[in-house]
């Protein structure tokens, strides 16, 4: 009885106010799936390359620094007085998946040419759980090695690196990546900043991540274990902070190595992070649109 009354009541109500039958438009998304974006804030996370691609026509400029070890204390202004290893680079997106970069690091006066190819993109729908990027690069040391009194050929100056970051945005805030990488120096010796002057080929699997503590601020880390059987190679440990300012991305960090590109990240020596063997560094990233 009560149920019938209620039904009648509802019908009468709708009869008097028929417009209530016509509610708002149903909200429908136009974009239902797209790649996860900004897995990292910049093409690099501390020093390691990331899966963060450039779009077609974007020019990325970065300048990276690492200073001396902070263990020098105040008289060395915690390593700043010792001068910096500086790397500047330009990278241009020829397509949404493919970019080519050029850089120069002051340590060992290395020019490097690299390309990044975005093989797989993590999709919001879960289509692919990870993003994978392939980054081959060639480095050319341009120091004057006349003091060695040997014939230093162009080929002797070359090194080759392959890095393949595999990353996943675990949540809006947390992104993680592993970066298998291998480097071969055609010639090694005491003249180069490699850990072991008798080892030509170095490899490792780097680990990196970022955790957003605010919409445009993240804490970052990297770890590159010394997997190669070589003397003087130690753990590369870095912790830092990324600040996105609406145009620039500033990355400030402490790391155990002066190295700023893949070839040297995997091959050069590191301080002991837990014994003052770390140094200050920072990167400035800026993106331009070239039509």
């Amino acid at each position, binding site marked *: 009885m009560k149920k019938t009354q209620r039904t009648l009541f509802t019908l009468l109500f709708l009869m008097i106010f028929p417009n209530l039958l016509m509610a708002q438009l149903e909200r429908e998304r136009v974009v239902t799936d797209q790649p996860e974006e900004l897995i990292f804030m910049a093409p690099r996370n501390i020093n390691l390359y990331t899966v963060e691609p450039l779009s077609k026509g974007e020019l990325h400029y970065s300048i990276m620094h690492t200073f001396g070890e902070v263990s020098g204390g105040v008289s060395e202004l915690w390593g700043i007085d010792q001068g910096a290893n500086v790397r500047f680079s330009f990278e241009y997106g020829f397509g949404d998946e493919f970019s080519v970069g050029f850089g120069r690091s002051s340590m060992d006066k290395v020019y490097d040419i690299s390309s990044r190819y975005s093989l797989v993109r993590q999709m919001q729908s879960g289509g692919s759980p990870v993003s994978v990027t392939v980054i081959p690069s060639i480095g050319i040391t341009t120091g004057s090695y006349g003091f060695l009194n040997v014939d230093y050929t162009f080929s002797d100056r070359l090194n080759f690196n392959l890095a393949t970051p595999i990353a996943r945005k675990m949540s809006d805030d947390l992104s993680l990546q592993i970066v298998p990488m291998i480097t071969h120096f055609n010639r090694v010796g005491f003249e180069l900043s490699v850990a072991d002057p008798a080892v030509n080929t170095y490899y490792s699997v780097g680990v990196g991540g970022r955790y957003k503590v605010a919409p*445009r601020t993240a804490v970052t880390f990297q770890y590159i274990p010394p997997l190669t059987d070589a003397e003087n190679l130690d753990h590369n440990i870095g912790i830092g902070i990324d600040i996105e*300012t609406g145009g620039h991305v500033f990355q400030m960090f402490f790391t155990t190595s002066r190295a700023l590109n893949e070839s040297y990240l995997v091959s050069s020596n590191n301080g002991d992070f837990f014994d003052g063997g770390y140094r200050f560094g920072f990167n400035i990233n800026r993106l331009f649109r070239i039509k």
Partner: protein
Amino acid sequence: MKKSILLFTTLIFAAGSFITERATAQKYMADDGYVEFISTAPLLEFKGVSENLTGLINLDTNMVDFYVDLNTLETGIQRRDRDMRNSYLETDKFPFAEFTGELISEFDPNLQEKQEARVRGMFKIHGVEREIEVTGTLEPDGESLQLEAGWTVLLADYNIDRPGVLFYELAEEQTVNISIQLVKTDN
């Protein structure tokens, strides 16, 4: 017996009123309207544009209902779009900008000329809803209505955070303009 008569009568009335409603419905809809968000900062002016504005005006009830999928907004620089979606609008969580309200000014759909139209209702973006009043124009054109309107949005009102340090490339005050041709529909 009495009950069933009452039920029958009610159903007849309900059906009748529904049919009448359909016959005289004055609903106008579109899903390809234009919307732009203009940011005018001291050093940089840019706008985010979408052509996926979806809208409904029901002249019987004076209801006005609009929304746009914010993932369709483009500023011309893809990195800026990604930042806009991820750091500012957070479109994962809040995919739509929407307005639902009513027409509060007089409007004559038979007068084939541009008429001032005022609407009042709730504007919602980034999960925050606020009452706004917007003045625009409505112009009947055969079986369609052309709507133009604009208003300003203060990002802080909608908890949209701007970078507080170093750079001010994104303006606190955004101008929103919409333009949409709504077509009469029977649905």
